[in-house]
């Protein structure tokens, strides 16, 4: 029976959500900040400011990039790219801060700078969004297909791609082998 090694624990400085909000608000102009309950901070920024905000937050200690996601707001004709950041450091247990950073990109020609220089694990999230939504990430030169095997005219996760109609056109039009001679 092996023995446990001593558990390494690093205690970060106690950061409150209000103080962080003031700092971000003073450094970056032209953004909207909102604090929801349970210490969730929502930041809405322009797409040119994203890399600066991300590197500022990484230096502050938010070094875990949880997710890069994309939401298709078809009625407003925009894509919304979402970055979710938390921290690995152990703070006071009930006061974990989550940062949800959002930006809007136009739907006709969607393009944004890649977060690869700051976070190394952003590569695969961006590859997936490129394949399924069609958003181009400038600076990520490995945007090769990840999941899909075929070419689709409209990237499949967009709201104007109707998957039920696609299935009806492609799969239901293939006849069983017994019916083929007739």
């Amino acid at each position, binding site marked *: *029976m*092996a023995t*446990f*090694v001593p*558990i*390494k*624990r*690093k205690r970060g400085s106690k950061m409150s959500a209000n103080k962080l909000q003031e700092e971000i608000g003073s450094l970056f102009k032209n953004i909207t900040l909102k604090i929801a309950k349970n210490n*969730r901070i929502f930041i809405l920024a322009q797409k040119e400011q994203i890399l600066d905000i991300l590197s500022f937050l990484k230096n502050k200690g938010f*070094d*875990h*990039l*949880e*997710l890069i*996601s994309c*939401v*298709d707001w078809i009625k407003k004709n925009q894509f919304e790219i*979402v970055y*979710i950041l938390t921290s*690995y450091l*152990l703070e006071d*247990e009930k006061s*974990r801060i*989550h940062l*949800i950073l959002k930006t809007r990109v136009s739907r006709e020609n969607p393009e944004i700078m890649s977060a690869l220089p700051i*976070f*190394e*694990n952003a*590569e*695969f999230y961006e590859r997936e969004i490129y394949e399924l939504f069609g958003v181009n990430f400038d600076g990520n030169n490995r945007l090769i*297909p*990840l*999941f*899909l*095997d075929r070419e689709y005219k409209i990237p*499949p*996760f967009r709201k104007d791609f109707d*998957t*039920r109609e696609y299935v009806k056109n492609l799969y239901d039009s293939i006849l069983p082998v017994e019916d083929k001679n007739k």
Partner: protein
Amino acid sequence: MIEERELELFYGPQHLGMVGNFSITLKVEGDTIVEAIANPGYLHRGFEKLMEYRNWIQNFPLVCRINVIEPDSIEMIYAMGVEKLAGIEVPERANYIRSIYLELARVGSHLFGAWAYANMLGFDTAAQWAMYHRDLILDLFEELTGGRVYHIYINPGGVRRDFPKGFKDKIVKTLHAIGGCIPDYDATFFNNALFYKRANGIGKINLETAKKLGAVGQVLRATGMEYDIRKVEPYAAYDKVDFNVPTREDGDAYSRIWIVRDEMIESVHMIFKLLDMMPEGDVWNRTPNPLKWRIPEGEAYVRVESSRGELGLYLVSNGEDKPYRVHFRTPSYTHGLPILEKLLKGANISDVGNIMISLYVIAPEIDR
């Protein structure tokens, strides 16, 4: 003849290195791997798109098929997301039942992992025992929920039904049967000198690289950092019970599998404590008519600790009766794609399956 020493191998979808279909293209020079390119997508069903066509409640049978080994943590996180958006409270007894249910699922999933790893290395005896003990736990699930593998038991607002009569004694009896066999497992597999020689030093990763690449779960705990969502951001009844989080320092395959074994023992102790502390009460706060239920606009991000690491869900609602956007952040995504490609560089070709299984990845979670 020009000596071309580099060979491109396709480590195809049918192999023992991964639970599920997943292939890698390896560029090999002699016996060492120069570059590895991961090739997922064999199990891609487009869940997140399919969920936009179904109601909030109709998505529960669909969503539990993302992680086929342990569907319970995904049900839990989807229910937590819906509760957060709709503002529903969960009664106290339901929290305790949810914790016990999730811990039973964790033990079952770790036994499946023990089967996979022991089978990969050739220790067939321990593998057969692990599968048999997992079947005993599946019998418990069958009595509680009606299904062996997909139990759609957690609803938003609580759980579907209460424990049947005599269920508590059955849980205790089954866990004593499994726990009593741990010395046998130790003697055949975990303390075996051959296992030590085959797994020590393989797939080593240090703390800085693990944090940079987004590691969570056993991969991170094996490098010395104690990071468990049950302690960091407690949910259900985890803040009321006292438990350890096993951590190791070496960061290689040997430490990761030992953490799996220690976690199994911790879960068994936790279930005993929770069973003693469980209060009485009802188990479900009724939700409105599921065919007409509309959830107000908003977005939420919730996390739980599944048996493989931290599972996250980003949920966006538009005010309708269907979700607008669902995005799962699964632990196998960062373990199976960037970390695997990094660990396979410079490894021996006979260790590929070893490294893949020790990262505790399953393929359906990567593709969704």
